[in-house]
């Protein structure tokens, strides 16, 4: 009951409001075209009929929620997953490069953070570059990376995963630097009184203390990684993946397909972030965290 009141209800209300706004928007955006069409076809409709027509165009400016939902369900659950039209198939293509990029991005992020925490020279030399790296718009970098790699014969998952790495290592670096530096002074003093080596302090104090920070930054990282994979699918007209589905949709004005692909991407993002969050919670429970 409390869960319904505190969590589900507020979210549902916002969702309902968004759907209403969406329908209103769809009517407003699609109405001019429908009016034009009706005038040329010399059709006269009542208000209700006209509204229905604006919400069921095959290539609307803004598809109505039910159109997107229908398309999404059809292409997700009713098609063979091996089909080129299946959203599951495209989502898997994007997901595989997301996960590859995320895994390497996280590993790279942790490695850099460990270096930065242990060597002041790395902190000074590397950190400004890492921050600068994130100010470059990914939309400008992604096509170049894809094209350059294609020129030397590397295509497919590797260049896509590279973009994901590029986007996901950053939050992990920032989070882990903070996490590895999070132990209290008293804990560090304590290790000092035991004459603990740097390695012992690292493994027994800094690493366990950084775990909550790691999962928090991995949540951001995995979402960024997905964005990277989708962006990487856009420029060279990749044949498969959520990104290519978006691109094809825009080429052929298949706005409903585009929106359905967008929904598929969002579902994947929600799943990934939820999974990372869950893994974090399980890990922290195993490490004796006080139940919230």
């Amino acid at each position: 009951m409390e869960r319904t009141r505190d969590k589900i209800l507020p979210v549902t209300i916002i969702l309902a409001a968004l759907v209403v706004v969406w329908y209103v928007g769809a009517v407003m955006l699609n109405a001019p075209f429908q009016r034009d069409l009706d005038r040329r076809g010399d059709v006269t409709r009542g208000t209700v009929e006209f509204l229905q027509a604006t919400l069921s165009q095959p290539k609307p400016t803004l598809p109505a929620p039910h159109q997107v939902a229908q398309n999404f369900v059809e292409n997700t659950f009713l098609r063979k997953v091996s089909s080129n039209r299946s959203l599951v198939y495209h989502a898997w293509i994007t997901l595989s490069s997301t996960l590859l990029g995320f895994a390497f991005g996280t590993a790279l992020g942790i490695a850099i953070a460990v270096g930065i925490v242990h060597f002041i020279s790395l902190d000074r030399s590397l950190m400004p570059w890492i921050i600068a790296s994130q100010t470059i718009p990914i939309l400008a970098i992604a096509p170049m990376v894809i094209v350059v790699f294609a020129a030397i014969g590397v295509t497919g998952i590797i260049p896509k995963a590279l973009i994901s790495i590029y986007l996901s290592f950053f939050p992990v670096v920032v989070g882990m630097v903070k996490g590895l530096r999070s132990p209290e002074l008293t804990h560090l003093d304590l290790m000092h009184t035991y004459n603990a080596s740097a390695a012992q302090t690292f493994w027994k104090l800094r690493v366990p203390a950084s775990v909550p920070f790691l999962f928090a930054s991995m949540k951001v990282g995995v979402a960024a990684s997905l964005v990277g994979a989708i962006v990487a699918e856009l420029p060279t007209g990749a044949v498969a993946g959520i990104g290519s589905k978006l691109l094809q949709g825009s080429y052929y004005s298949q706005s409903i397909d585009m929106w359905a692909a967008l929904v598929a991407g969002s579902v994947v993002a929600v799943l990934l972030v939820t999974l990372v969050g869950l893994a974090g919670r399980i890990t922290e429970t195993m490490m004796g965290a006080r139940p919230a």
Partner: protein
Amino acid sequence: MTGNTPTVVEAKRLGLTFETGDGPVQALSDVDLSIGKGEFVSFIGPSGCGKTTFLRVIADLEQPTAGTISVNGMSPREARENRAYGYVFQAAALFPWRTIDRNVALPLEIMGISKAERGERIRRTMDLVNLTGFEKKYPWQLSGGMQQRASIARALAFDADLLLMDEPFGALDEIVRDHLNEQLLELWARTEKTICFVTHSIPEAVYLSTRIVVMSPRPGRVTDVIDSTLPRERPLDIRETPEFLAIAARVRDGLRAGHSYEE
């Protein structure tokens, strides 16, 4: 102090000046003190008198800027490297991701003590601080007093002869504190360790100590050293005896003479 007890801590004209943004702050000045084996020495004084700093100098957590200090005849650094002391902080400072027994095991792991021996020492020290049965609890599942006992167990686990305690019971309520004071005396009698104990409570200092070092701030210095005439065996109600009250009065006088509270 009798001449034939070995000296554990020996400070001569010890000084420590912190460089701060507002200029130098003299935390310790001209501290002369020698602590013999098996003594229970309390350091008492208002905040800023350098009592904690002195403890941290013994522990090689701060570096003195003047004078000399030796711990077990060595420099504090060498003493630390030889794991000569156990340090108990004001906060229990247990690792939240370790159960109590694994917290006690921490120094043993770092010192490379075998697993079998670790189990044995954990059992013994947990018994010493009356925490048997709580080995598998996480720190947050224990009360503040129990957490502090666990941190004492951790400091005792590797059998250092010197125990440095920095206001270990400062954050606890008085009933728990009384109880822990009693237990600490008992533990001290059983283990015959040398204990340096920082506190700002006069009754606590008088009840526990064989010697009380009264300190005063700006600059941090020793203003009085009081040898306790109380017997080693001390029930809690010794605090009502005239002898106890006389020592407490002298400590209070020392504190008053050393600095003015009006500042």
